């Protein structure tokens, strides 16, 4: 009887072992299947894209950040349209509107591609199974840089106009110069001078910000140089060159202002006329101040850009590239030393 008990115990232990193994296996298969929406009731919808950026079958579909399904199939229907087959949980389908849009994204910086379904407006009816939704174009870094370029062009134009105005004042053309020639202004000379001083101080502050901007851009030369050959780089280049023009114009502006002040000091007839119009001086002052603020902002923007590029440097993907660059630099240095 003892022997029989032993084999029975063995059989029970074996059964426990086998059941444990099989249930682990089934659990694993179930969990994986669950992730791929293989079980439970699902519905099929379609999304059209121009560019799927390497989306693969099995990638997740999210609605409001929640996983609601997976990509089941990808096929081309014509030269510019790709239709993606999506399997969506039935209960999630009850919340997606007909005008919802699909957008491609990545799971983390270098993770898998995902499809985000962006909610549509509420007055439109709910999506049915087998319906098709459209997609957003993906916003890229290129788009962001081209917007920045336009901003800079505008700033350049602004300073150019300002330059024209000051020049006109100097050469005594138009209303402002007429006002300057007016003899009734003499009494307020002192006040005007004070305002001019303030203006000069602001201008110098502005110049120093300008300087900072240029310096920070200069520092980034290596960073920008990296992107030398791409479209992005060209855009960045034009941004910088615009900023340069702006700076040059600014210099001329300041020089002109200087001349104006000198003449006022020298007591040509102009002093009298000028001192009579405080508001004009104030206006110039505020305009210079606002220009200063603009430049300050630009400077901050450039510092941020620099930070971004710095962050990019630390990003794992570009890291190797930057390291290589540094190494090359070092090599060049060594060569020069030799």
């Amino acid at each position: 009887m003892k022997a029989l008990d032993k084999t029975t115990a063995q059989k029970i232990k074996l059964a426990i072992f086998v059941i444990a193994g099989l249930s682990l296996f089934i659990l694993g298969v179930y969990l994986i299947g669950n992730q791929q929406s293989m079980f439970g009731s699902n519905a099929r919808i379609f999304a059209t894209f121009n560019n799927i950026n390497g989306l693969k079958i099995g990638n997740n579909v999210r609605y409001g950040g929640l996983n609601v399904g997976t990509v089941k199939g990808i096929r081309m229907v014509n030269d510019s349209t790709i239709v993606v087959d999506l399997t969506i949980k039935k209960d999630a389908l009850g919340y997606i509107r007909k005008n919802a849009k699909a957008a491609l994204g990545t799971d983390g910086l270098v993770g898998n591609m995902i499809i985000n379904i962006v909610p549509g407006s509420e007055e439109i009816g709910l999506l049915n199974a087998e319906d098709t939704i459209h997609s957003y174009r993906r916003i890229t870094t290129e788009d962001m840089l081209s917007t920045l370029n336009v901003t800079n062009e505008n700033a350049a134009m602004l300073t150019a106009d300002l330059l024209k105005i000051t020049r006109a004042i100097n050469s005594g053309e138009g209303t402002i110069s007429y006002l300057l020639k007016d003899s009734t202004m003499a009494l307020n000379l002192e006040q005007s001078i004070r305002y001019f001083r303030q203006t000069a101080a602001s201008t110098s502050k502005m110049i120093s910000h300008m300087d900072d901007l240029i310096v920070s851009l200069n520092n980034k030369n290596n960073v920008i140089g990296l992107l030398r050959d791409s479209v992005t780089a060209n855009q960045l280049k034009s941004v910088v060159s615009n900023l340069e023009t702006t700076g040059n114009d600014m210099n001329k502006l300041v020089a002109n202002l200087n001349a104006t002040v000198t003449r006022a000091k020298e007591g040509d007839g102009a002093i009298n006329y000028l001192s009579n119009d405080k508001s004009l001086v104030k206006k110039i002052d505020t305009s210079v101040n606002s220009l200063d603020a603009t430049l300050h902002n630009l400077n901050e923007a450039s510092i941020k850009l620099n930070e971004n590029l710095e962050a990019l440097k630390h990003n794992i993907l570009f890291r190797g590239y930057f390291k290589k660059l540094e190494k090359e630099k070092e090599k060049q240095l060594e060569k020069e030393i030799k």
Partner: protein
Amino acid sequence: MGTQKTINSLQVFLTEVGDISYFAGRFFTDVFKRPFEFKEFLRQCYNMGNRSLLLVGVTGFIIGLVFTLQSRPTLQEFGAVAWMPSMVGISIIREIGPIITALICAGRIGSGIGAELGSMRVTEQIDAMEVSGTNPFKYLVITRILATTFMLPILVIIGDAIALYGSYLVENIKGDVSFQLYFSEVFSSLEFGDVIPSTIKSFFFGFAIGLVGCYKGYNCDKGTEGVGLAANSAVVYTSLLLFVIDFVAVLVADLFYEL
């Protein structure tokens, strides 16, 4: 002289491969013939499955632990520690789990079979079975090969689970990752294309361990030395064969599932 030696060793090698193939062929022709030695099969399953569990469990646990500890600094450098569960999950399920478990079992089970059958051959126990009307091939060889074939995948699955648990412990202590997060990350990165081929592969691993162990033991030379040699060469040949099977399995899996 040199070429003669090469030819001789080649001949020995080919004879060996031929013998093993013949042995495997005999297994396949006899496995479906009555009578089935079911009780002995269960006994062998118990011996090979349950009794290897501790060894496989401890090894798996340590592998999971060490693997995670070792790869953590590198991932940290890239700021990709969040990828740890996926990375560990995929590598353990696809490759490390099956091959480590199989190697451990080749050492434990393969040598055990080689030595047991070898000593049975030497002490004429196999002849005694033959004479008493029991087909020793069916009773000893088929049950053992079947037992290893069916037990190894289960051992691999349990070993995988324990290894993942070990890896989770490290992540939990070092990175404060919760159990749920860890395992949902693991399973979200896994696909059937990872699990199915490695499970099928495990069956072949088990078959190889049983086949070579039985072949070496069953055809053991007379004498105590023969038993040692049988056990030893069972382990060596099995380990080698495991890697060959692994290689072929990866190639085949590659064909069926795009990587």
